[in-house]
């Protein structure tokens, strides 16, 4: 099995599993909605007269980071529960290919959740997304990829420990600082509708972050899977 086909097979397996159970999507989606709800209560946007361009970037990125953690965790917990991790290790393919497969599945997953949640958050603010849809999709996709690269690696690390649920957010959130900062900043520019140069620069930086941690994941994943 070539690394590429192994990655794609694993990714397809994860997606198929999710399509059949819809466990992870449902959980991440409703968690994301709940975050919006808490946001609504915590910052009384209507009374304060805050619109989506003011706070939208914050809402989007807090929702994305926290709900994605749920998905990353789940992508490895399902393997652990039925000892599938052992089976995966026995596969005649490179561990790095497994990382890529899991990473791809996670990115698609995060984007699927955001694809539904983002329009809903705009709706809560009565904001029309159609004007900024393309650049916004670009920021979310690039940053979600970077976040998923680090998230996939750290989820694999934390799932091998005793209290994986506790550990992943603690490991991932501080390390993902650059993604959160660049994501928020680029989103804000995008919603404000000006500053094309800076926008491209920030998205490029997030892309670099993604590349660095995809490479790191490919190189290090072998050590994580080892018994």
């Amino acid at each position, binding site marked *: 099995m070539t690394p590429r086909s192994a990655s794609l097979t694993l990714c397809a397996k994860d997606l198929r599993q999710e399509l059949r159970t819809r466990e992870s999507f449902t959980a991440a989606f409703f968690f994301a909605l709940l975050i919006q709800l808490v946001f609504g209560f915590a910052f009384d946007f209507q009374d304060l007269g805050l619109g989506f361009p003011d706070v939208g970037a914050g809402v989007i990125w807090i929702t994305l980071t926290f709900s994605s953690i749920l998905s990353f965790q789940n992508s490895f917990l399902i393997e652990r529960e039925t000892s599938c991790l052992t089976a995966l290790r026995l596969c005649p393919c490179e561990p790095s290919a497994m990382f890529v497969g899991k990473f791809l599945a996670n990115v698609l997953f995060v984007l699927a959740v955001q694809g539904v949640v983002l329009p809903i958050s705009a709706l809560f603010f009565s904001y029309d997304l159609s004007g900024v849809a393309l650049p916004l999709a670009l920021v979310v996709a690039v940053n979600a990829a970077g976040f998923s690269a*680090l998230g996939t*690696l*750290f989820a694999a*690390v*934390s799932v*091998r*420990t*005793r*209290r994986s649920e*506790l*550990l992943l957010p*603690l*490991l991932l*959130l*501080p*390390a993902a*600082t*650059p993604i959160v*900062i*660049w994501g928020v*900043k680029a989103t804000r520019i995008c919603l404000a509708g000006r500053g094309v140069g800076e926008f491209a620069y*920030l998205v490029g*930086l997030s892309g670099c*972050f993604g590349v*660095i*941690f995809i490479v*790191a994941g490919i190189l*290090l994943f072998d*050590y*994580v899977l*080892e*018994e």
Partner: protein
Amino acid sequence: MERALRFADTVLFPLVTVLMVASLYFVFRVAPNEVTMGAVQRIFYFHVPSAWVAFLAFFLVFLASVLHLATRRMIWDTLAHAAAELGVLFCGIVLMTGPIWARPAWGTWWTWEARLTTTLVLELVFVAYLLLRSQAESPAQGARLAAVVGIAGFLDVPLIYFSVKIWRGHHPIVFKTGGGEGLEPVMLQAFALCMVTFTLFFILLLALRFRLGLLQEDLAELREAARSGRTT
């Protein structure tokens, strides 16, 4: 190895003791009061060396992690663990002394400046690293997982610093570290002395913590042997 560790006891320990007393003397008696900031400026003789030592420690975690993954020797993992603990300790000192100075000097306990924020994020990354170690199922596995996080965490350092810098935009430069310009020669001497003292102090603590780690491993092995009924 044994000889190196004994060196810590016989030479380094008395040396650091003498240097620490000398540093305190220099900081509080020899170095003059800073004109604008007054006595509180003296905190920097400890603050900056602690920051340097913390970064040195995190770099050591990275190096030892790479060596552990490359050679599989547990000794590197013990070193990484020791360095990470000390890094968190010294980083904590930086985060505590900083606000004490900032309050009278800048009029605020905290500001989201690039260097401060990076230090805080780094502290959190390595606290998570230590938590991970305590949650591992076996020492060998814990060592490997920790090495992965240690490497990823260190790769992240420049990215975090850079990102926070961008986030703050054109923040006014509030103060310059290290650079000798404007620093009185006596102040510079005190500062240099503190840098040397703290570096040696760190090496001493590292040696002690490293030895403790080795002893803990020996103890775990003996326990294991006792449990399985073997005689060693």
